[in-house]
């Protein structure tokens, strides 16, 4: 009975350690901050504070969980694996994403799971990474994160490509307005003109009053010209998001860029 209890106790400790140990670093960090994990020490205290606020605002708006992560030791993993493991560990719901700056592999990485996969297609992730790259290559890490958060927000607002929320753009309203005004004026002046006998008057109709007796009717083929034109197919640049299954059995999307 005691032996069994000890065994169970040990097994329980093993289980707890096994689960918790790899994330002790994360757990420590979580005590300080909830969303920004600066293991590589790239950010100042104030920068972390302001990034946290930005992240919180974005999370509230989108309903997703966003984390920022820096590391100088990827523990021999690729940036993708490392990011996905952290994302999986930190995520409380299903929809989340993580922006990682990995100084070990010298790579910026975005990992997405759940809803964000649909919003952040491969091409959008590339564009977010491009935005961040200019800063990060100049070692302005906080600005890099800021750029990533704001362009992520932009894409969230644009919606899922191909399913953008229906909206009337200003130029559409302008065109509609111009057509409407033109139509109104057309109605107005066509009636004024008609009432003032400016048009719509009698016109001799030669079809009704004329007769023709054709004596000669010849149609000769002369030549033919064929021209060709290449059709620019609008190959949608946003073909979608590539996904794979990773840590925690979740489906992840994402992409990275070396610096």
């Amino acid at each position, binding site marked *: 009975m005691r032996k069994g209890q000890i065994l169970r106790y040990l097994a329980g400790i093993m289980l707890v350690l096994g689960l918790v140990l790899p994330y002790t670093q994360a757990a420590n960090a979580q005590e300080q901050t909830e969303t920004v994990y600066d293991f590589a020490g790239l950010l100042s205290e104030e920068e972390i504070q302001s990034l946290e606020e930005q992240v919180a605002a974005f999370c509230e708006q989108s309903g997703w969980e966003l984390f920022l992560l820096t590391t100088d030791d990827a523990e021999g993993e690729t940036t993708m694996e490392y990011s996905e493991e952290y994302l999986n560990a930190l995520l409380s719901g299903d929809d989340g994403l993580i922006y990682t700056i990995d100084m070990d592999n010298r790579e910026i990485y975005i990992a997405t799971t759940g809803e964000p996969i649909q919003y952040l297609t491969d091409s959008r992730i590339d564009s977010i990474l491009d935005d961040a790259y200019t800063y990060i290559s100049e070692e302005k890490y906080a600005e890099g994160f800021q750029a990533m958060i704001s362009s992520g927000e932009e894409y969230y607002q644009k919606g899922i490509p191909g399913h953008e929320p229906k909206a009337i753009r200003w130029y559409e309203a302008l065109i509609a307005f111009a057509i409407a005004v033109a139509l109104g004026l057309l109605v107005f002046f066509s009636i004024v003109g008609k009432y003032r006998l400016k048009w719509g008057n009698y016109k001799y109709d030669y079809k009704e009053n004329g007769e023709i007796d054709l004596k000669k009717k010849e149609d000769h083929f002369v030549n033919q010209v*064929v*021209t060709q034109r290449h059709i620019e197919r609008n190959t949608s640049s946003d073909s979608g998001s590539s996904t794979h299954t990773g840590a925690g059995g979740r489906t992840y999307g994402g992409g990275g860029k070396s610096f």
Partner: protein
Amino acid sequence: MSVISFKCPNCDGELVFEPSSGKYKCEYCFSLFTQEELDAMKPAETEEQPKEQETEQETDAEQTGGEKEEADGEAVVYSCPSCGAQIVTDETTAASFCYYCHNPVVLGGRLSGDYLPDKIIPFSIDKKEAEKRFLDYVKDKKFVPRAFFNKKQIEKLSGVYFPYWVYDARMSGNLEAEATDVRVWVTGDTEYTETKYYAVERGGDMKIKNMTENALKKANKKLVEGVLPYRMEECRKFTLGYLSGFGAEKRDMEKSEFEADMKNQAKEYAVDMMRDTIENYSGVKVKNSNIQIKNEKWSYLLLPVWTLTYRARGGKTFYYSLNGQTGKVCGELPIDYKKLGCVSAIVSAAAFVIGLIGGWLI
């Protein structure tokens, strides 16, 4: 030259042409007479007064260019065969009413010789019908101010035979054109446009008829040509009797004034007719055409027009014409700008909303 009145053999009253029956009716004893019966009677005539004619002739000579043959027709004062009063007329008036006894008079001399009309279309719409047609026409117009037109404000409604020139022509000619046939198809990522060129020739005889021109200078060209077309197949041989009870004007424009225009126009129609026979192409470009007029006929016609003067409440006078055969109305209409503005605005607003919905859906 004579002034003619058609007298009823029963009561010696005035006979007038009645559009609804096409017969001659005595306004006093209601007897009806056919054309044949009228032809058998001898109308009452009075000779014009030469002295009065002299005084007017000087002033009129300038306007008519002093043609000798016309000199006879220039008298503007006649005496009424019924009451003997003086009838003052325009130099083109061929039928009118005695100013004093209101009896119809026909100035036969004005429509004789060169001025004898080739054909006439008699009135088939009478005064009452004309009034009704006019009011119906106006009522149908949506943007005429409500209650603007009412019967009482029709100031003057008179039936007048106006002079017209009618031109018929037979032509022959040929035409050369380049026709193109365009076919577009897509294979893979390439769009092909095939254009086939054809040399097309047409030749033949063309006939055009009933090109009509106003032949009275003082007439409002827009109004008297606005009531065209007439059903020309209902033309009748001219007799003075048709004029009794109506006004009539003789022409003061000669065909030479229109000749060049009419011929060019006829040739254009001929080209159009030939061009219309080039069918089933995407595009036709006329390169060359040659038309000769083989045969032409000018007819001098009197056509029935009801002229209507309407004094609007604001004091503005509107003039209308109404085809005495078909009832077609022509004339400027007053516009209810408020209403028209509202409708235009509604159309605009509706188009704007539809446009926005379209923008939303795209």
